[in-house]
């Protein structure tokens, strides 16, 4: 984890409300592990003070990029920023996905919305190619499928309105695939909490290991404030663990879903 002023190299709309932001960060880029995030301060956001967390999407030479959805005050201002302007980033943060060893498990990735961003590096660095299951409400919510295809991965798409891929939730094609076979497979998921919960239940049902990247509101991003906790099994009860430090990626079996949305 380091803190740096990073310069915007590109900030382009990729679809609808989604933007791709490329940042020059020579000291951060080499450190990034799949599933880690950057905690970004948008200085122009004067009366909104806190940093915003974003998964690190791609790492390329001395840059890293994020894929963000414009949803509120911060991302709105971010979307207006131009190349040459700067941000402050603390990164890389958090415990990411465990990349399977060569000859190890075949990864099945499950993503919803900007959850795709957290999975790209995993796909890229995994010695085994696998399948990406992507879900979204409409066609525009299906992001960067081509980036995964270029890596030689298979992409299976589900949209709720059926405008791309199969109609329905992403867990339907995932279930179908798990029904085919579970041997040597490992699930990795990132997306809205209800999706993560559904993936967690499938993992339990089919007894496959699963790593879930949790999306909790954050404050400090580095483990000091205790804002971002989720319930994690411990002993014969549970304890709160920090999404920013012990997570964002947790073993699905460890998560206590009670109290989650």
């Amino acid at each position, binding site marked *: *984890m*380091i*803190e740096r002023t990073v310069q915007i190299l590109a900030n382009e709309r990729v679809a609808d409300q989604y933007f791709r932001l490329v940042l020059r960060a020579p000291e951060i880029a080499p450190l990034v592990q799949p599933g880690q995030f950057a905690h970004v*301060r948008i200085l122009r956001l004067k*009366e*909104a*003070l*806190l*940093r915003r967390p974003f998964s690190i999407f791609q790492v390329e030479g001395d840059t890293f990029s994020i894929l963000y959805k414009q949803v509120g005050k911060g991302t709105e201002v971010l979307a207006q920023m131009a190349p040459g302007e700067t941000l*402050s980033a*603390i990164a890389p943060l958090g415990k990411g996905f465990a990349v399977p060893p060569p000859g190890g498990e075949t990864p099945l990735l499950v993503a919803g919305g900007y959850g795709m961003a957290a999975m790209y590096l995993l796909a890229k660095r995994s010695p085994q190619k696998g399948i990406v299951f992507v879900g979204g409400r409409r066609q525009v919510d299906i992001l960067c499928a081509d980036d995964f295809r270029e890596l030689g991965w298979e992409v299976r798409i589900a949209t709720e309105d059926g405008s791309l891929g199969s109609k329905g939730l992403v867990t339907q094609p995932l279930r179908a695939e798990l029904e085919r076979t579970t041997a040597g497979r490992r699930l990795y998921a990132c997306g809205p909490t209800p999706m993560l919960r559904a993936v967690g239940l499938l993992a339990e049902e089919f007894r496959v290991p699963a790593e879930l990247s949790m999306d*909790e*509101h954050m*404050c*400090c991003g*580095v*483990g*000091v*404030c*205790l*804002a*971002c*906790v*989720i319930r994690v099994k411990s002993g014969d009860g549970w*304890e*709160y663990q920090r999404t920013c*430090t012990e997570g964002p990626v947790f073993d699905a079996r460890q998560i206590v879903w009670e*109290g989650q949305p």
Partner: protein
Amino acid sequence: MNLSVQLGSLQMQNPVTVASGTFGYGVEYAQLLDLNRLGAVTVKGIRLNPVRGNPTPRTVEVTSGMLNAIGLQGPGVDGFIEKYWPFLRSLNVPTIINIWGTSVEEYAEVARRFDAVEGVGALELNVSCPNIKEGGAQFGTDVNLLRQVVSACRQATRLPLITKLSPNVPNIASFARAAAEAGSDALSVTNSVPAMAIDSETRRPRLANVTGGLTGPCIKPIALKLVWEAARAVRIPIVGMGGIQTATDAIEFLVAGATAVAVGTANFYEPQTAFQVLAGLQEYMERHRMTDVRELTGSLRAGP
């Protein structure tokens, strides 16, 4: 240039510390910051036993500030000593341990436990937590309870005691005096301000705990006034805090009467804040040809 200050017998190499609960147990920032450049490290509140804390959401951003209702999650005295003390002890700067309890006896017991720990810098008494025994009153808003807590801790330890006053009283001077009379070596002013946020669309509170504490730049003018009032009521030193994000802010607290300052919420968005404050303070002192930071304390020029 002398930057060192004292809080009772606690020596600080400079007047800038961090606010309890905004800096974890120090170790979390060790990768980002050189902790040995701080005046002191102040850690998150500890009570006797481990505390799980409140459900989430525990924080929410508001205009120029934030609310929190962490619920004092913590490892308890033993957990703290086991997990965090070896690291803190290894630093060259003192640690201020923020403590709390749900009864006068618990406060005293926690103080006694830390009295036996080698190398503790000072204890900061957080008296703004719910008092279970007294039925929902707060130690920090009842001047007699405050007196009892401080006295009991005073008897339990020779460590410097810093009583952290609640902002939520009409007359902080009487609380400041009560703490000083009961044996407090210093005061911290101020804790977070009781507040609330609501999501108008869902009509739900934004914090699981419904209410929480307001902190950050939005409370600076409130905190500054409390420091000024407390400083005029007592002779013991004051650690000023509430919304400090620049050296200018810190200097205002010193001028109002603080001997030291603590950076709180600003750590969350700018972990370098304490060092920026320190650098700006030195630059200010040079520019104003001051040789001792203590010249600033209480130097407000009021009157026409």
